[in-house]
């Protein structure tokens, strides 16, 4: 089980920052910190730490022009930036002196430095063991280089006092999902790459920096606009632009180390050149506002929260009893033990006490073996090949967006909903949403399948998605059936009023859902329907046919955590002054990931697997996510997710 950390409320997504409650434990951290302010001597030396060609006027101006013309937002890159031998020495120091620890959250998996989380806090002890790293920091935050960056990016002055950089390394399967870096007073983001010197980092190793265009501000497109394959001694940088500067780190696909030093230039601080009174507060306020807007903006979220009222007479409990027809229908799909009175009563007792239950071997053997064989066969021989860009996803499959929240393929039983760009989305938004009908999709697929004649694909083993789509739709229909709703009542004692069922596929190397709690529309009575109970009944029918997911290394797992931020805020009011100081120090620092060393915030976790139904009654403060599915996983994570609003009584 990977170590799971909880992200703070902050929507920021940068991994490498000091956690606000972590007691510095290394000897170095208790040492007095070295002042950040450059001495004149250091300032003079700084220029020598860079390669001279970058100061050439023509080079500088060409770079400036290329940044002005750059897309999807203003960014640039310089190869051979730092004096070669200095940077090689920095790398040797890092490899020999710094220990990395694997950190994993819903948004990243990365190896971070433990005792030197932020290089702004280097002590005298650190200086002794990391002299070259210290030189590099001086160089990067020197006036010379700050002015250089200001000039080529066209942004205002940059702070030399507020330094903010850290080291991290991405090895096989590490990644950082889409985010815009906007937080606090950041003005320019940069990443200096240090993969193995003397070797070319090839595109198929992964680990590239990918930039995303926007659908509208705050909503990134799903496919990257461009990508930069990092080389040793190359820097990439961009202006931090609220709602625009969306980027990610592509998963590293091979067994190599993509080491980098990354950080930010902030707006000038009090007493510095270029300091403007109130600018810090304004920038921070803007960042916060942008985060809020981005979080609240749901117009561009697909699939839509779309509950459909179910047709049953829930007021009559005798109606909710399973009759022989129900049982015979359910047994077509389910393990027949599940419809026996004894099992149902056992399950019910557990569920009512625990609010969660995992049922292995949920589908009956005959049904599940055929489905598993079909899914495996499809995955191994998929034709056309697995869609890797939005346009390749063909109805009835759709793409979940936007990519800073989620990415996966799904079938929701509804009509086509074109969502490639803003105008399509605006039109789609205005369509009436019919009642989901998986049965019709199933029937349509059956028709097209029987009409299909083999063509140029004849001598291939290619398998298209028809058969598995039919099968999955059949199961989704089953989960919407009256008989299944009655069975749910037997287990949960909850009478369902509205449902939303979605068939999902999480493709290797692409898909995930970041942690969210239930929003107003999702939460039982949140949409104003007070006949509904607060919270929702949720089910995940795990249908991943491939093996190898047990350790969580491939991701694709489902995880629930508590969201007790309100409590912790209250607690912090009574904190000691020193803690307040710590909180203050960190409040504008990026990703403050609460460390839960005991992992006690994890309420539920489930690796991708075959034929397991998870049922849970989820209250509004429970965060849930599906971890990014690794490129190296054997296949996709498949599941059918169900969500029901239940009667409040």
């Amino acid at each position, binding site marked *: 089980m990977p170590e799971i950390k909880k992200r703070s409320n902050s929507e920021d997504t940068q991994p490498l920052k000091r956690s606000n409650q972590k007691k510095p434990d290394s000897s170095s951290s208790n040492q007095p910190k070295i002042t950040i302010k450059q001495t004149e001597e250091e300032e003079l030396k700084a220029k020598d730490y860079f390669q001279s060609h970058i100061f050439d006027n023509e080079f500088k101006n060409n770079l400036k022009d290329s940044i002005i013309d750059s897309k999807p937002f203003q960014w640039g890159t310089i190869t051979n930036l730092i004096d070669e031998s200095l940077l090689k020495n920095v790398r040797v120091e890092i490899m020999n002196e710094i220990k990395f620890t694997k950190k994993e959250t819903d948004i990243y998996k990365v190896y971070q430095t433990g005792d030197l989380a932020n290089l702004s806090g280097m002590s005298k002890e650190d200086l002794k063991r990391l002299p070259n790293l210290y030189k590099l920091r001086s160089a990067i935050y020197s006036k010379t280089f700050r002015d250089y960056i200001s000039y080529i990016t066209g942004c205002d002055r940059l702070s030399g006092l507020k330094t903010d950089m850290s080291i991290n390394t991405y090895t096989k399967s590490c990644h950082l999902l889409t985010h815009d870096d906007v937080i606090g007073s950041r003005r320019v983001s940069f990443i200096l790459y240090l993969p193995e010197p003397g070797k070319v980092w090839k595109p*198929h190793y992964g680990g590239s920096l990918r930039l995303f265009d926007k659908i509208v501000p705050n909503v990134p497109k799903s496919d990257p606009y461009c990508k930069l394959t990092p080389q040793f001694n190359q820097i990439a940088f961009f202006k931090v632009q609220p709602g625009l500067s969306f980027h990610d780190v592509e998963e590293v696909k091979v067994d190599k180390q993509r080491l980098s030093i990354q950080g930010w230039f902030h707006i000038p601080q009090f007493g510095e050149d270029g300091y403007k009174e109130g600018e810090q507060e304004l920038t921070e306020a803007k960042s916060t506002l942008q985060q809020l807007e981005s979080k609240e903006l749901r117009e561009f979220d697909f699939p839509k929260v779309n509950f459909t009222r179910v047709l049953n007479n829930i007021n009559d409990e005798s109606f909710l009893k399973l009759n022989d027809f129900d049982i015979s229908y359910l047994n077509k799909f389910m393990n027949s033990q599940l419809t026996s009175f004894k099992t149902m009563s056992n399950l019910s007792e557990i569920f009512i006490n625990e609010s969660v239950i995992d049922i292995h071997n949920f589908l009956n053997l005959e049904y599940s073996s055929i489905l598993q064989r079909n899914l495996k066969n499809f995955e191994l021989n998929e034709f056309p090949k697995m869609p890797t860009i939005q346009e390749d996803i063909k109805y009835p499959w759709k793409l979940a967006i936007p990519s800073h929240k989620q990415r996966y393929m799904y079938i929701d039983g509804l009509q086509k909903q074109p969502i490639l760009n803003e105008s399509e989305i605006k039109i789609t938004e205005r369509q009436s949403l019919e009642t989901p009908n998986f049965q019709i999709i199933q029937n349509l697929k059956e028709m097209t399948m029987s009409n299909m004649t083999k063509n140029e694909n004849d001598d291939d083993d290619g398998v298209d998605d028809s058969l598995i789509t039919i099968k999955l739709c059949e199961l989704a229909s089953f989960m919407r059936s009256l008989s299944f709703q009655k069975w749910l009542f037997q287990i949960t004692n909850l009478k369902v009023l509205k449902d939303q069922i979605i068939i999902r596929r999480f493709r290797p190397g692409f898909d995930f859902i970041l942690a969210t709690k239930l929003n107003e529309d999702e939460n039982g009575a949140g949409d104003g329907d007070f006949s509904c109970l607060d919270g929702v009944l949720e089910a995940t029918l795990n249908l991943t046919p*491939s093996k190898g997911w047990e350790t969580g290394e491939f991701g694709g797992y489902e995880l629930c955590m508590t969201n007790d931020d309100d409590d912790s805020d209250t607690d912090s009011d009574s904190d000691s002054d020193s803690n307040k100081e710590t909180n203050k120090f960190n409040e504008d620092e990026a990703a403050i990931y609460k460390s839960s060393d005991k992992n006690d915030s994890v309420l539920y976790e489930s690796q991708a697997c075959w034929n397991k139904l998870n049922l849970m009654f989820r209250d509004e*403060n429970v965060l849930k996510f599906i971890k990014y599915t690794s490129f190296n996983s054997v296949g996709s994570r498949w599941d059918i997710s169900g969500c029901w609003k239940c009667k409040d009584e």
Partner: protein
Amino acid sequence: MAPKRPLGLGKAAKAKKQKKSEISLEPESSAQESQQPAEFTNELTVELSEEVNPDDPLAQLSALWMTWFKSEKDNELILNGIIHECDRINRNCKQNGGDEDIELTPEFYAIFGRSLADLANFHTEEDEDVEAGDEKPEEVSNISDYFENSLERIEDGLAKFSNSALLLFAKAEIILQRIPLEYISKMDMNSEKKDFPNMHELLQESLDTYESAVKICEQEKNFEMFNNESTLEILNSLDDLLDIIDNFGKQNSEGLDSDHEESSNEDLDDIIEEVELSKKHPLYKIQNSDKFNSFWRTASLKHLSSMNKTEKPNPTLKRKLAKKIGQSYMMEAEEPISIFTTLEYDSDNGDGEDEEGEINGLTAAQAQKIAKDLVSTALRFLADSWDEEDPQSWVDIAEAEIMMGNLFEVGSNEQESWYGKAEKKLKKANNATHGKYDDILNNLLNQEE
């Protein structure tokens, strides 16, 4: 009384420490091919096979051992549990003066010995923690003690069951584990023979023991012994050990493995620094002898043929073994392939007329013939390693087919035919893995053009 309605996951967790509630149903059919629920919890689940009496402590021990053996082998607690149970059974059985009616079996001693040897893996650093001159706490066992104890248990067993193939296999395996863990881990380039036990003799002892176990199985026609993973693991351990010794002292650059698939041999030579061991080095003799590699090949072939004599050879084991044997022929083919390509294509004349040229006593034609034979044998075994659900197994075959293609005249029908076969497999594998083999496939397509 239970509340009528669930509280909700978050609230329930606050109310008490959350337990994960799982219920595992039997698959309905009696067919046992269906998979067990793939759970991953911290709790240990021990699966007892149906015919085993759960009240039988030896059966339970055996189940516990299998749980360990099939696990990631990273949970020391399981191992400690096994050893404690072995100790308890050993003390309490009637033959040792206890009052439990348990008959100690060869399997008992094998589990006892092998679990102690496995425990050594968790204590490799204890010796290093004790600085020179420091007094070592008495109760702290060092790695040597674990292995000594482990072998002692096996000898106890052999004293009672001298003809037990199981115990002899266990002994062979323990020695193979001991060599790298206890000795090689303490060596560097300057190590000398005089400071270590004789590695060559130790390895030979293990292999002699292995051979005598094989002989017993053959005499008893007990071929089922070759149908289990534990016996095959001995050959895997030998293979790993020979690999460690072969590469001893060589510095790999970062991430060699991942690049291996697209690197040519010349690239690899650049990456791996060549080093030579001194004659005084404890590993010199093994590194410079080919007899252990030959032993591995012969033993593996024999294992495969014994496995085929069983009623139902384990398909997974068979695939694994066939793959390893196939790969070993491919490795053997590397040298003649390289001689052939050098003489045929890289000669100074560049006109292919350097027919008199020889490398290591082989002409191009001779090297080509040897290479073709070896690759063809490799392909025979690799064909048996084809796994419908494992695209890598298709790629392994495709790579051998490309190699075979390379041994024919450029542009010839034979070459095209081998490339064609490989391309089909690579395309299939690339599709199944959403592009993992793009690079190899592109190389092949460029080659074909």
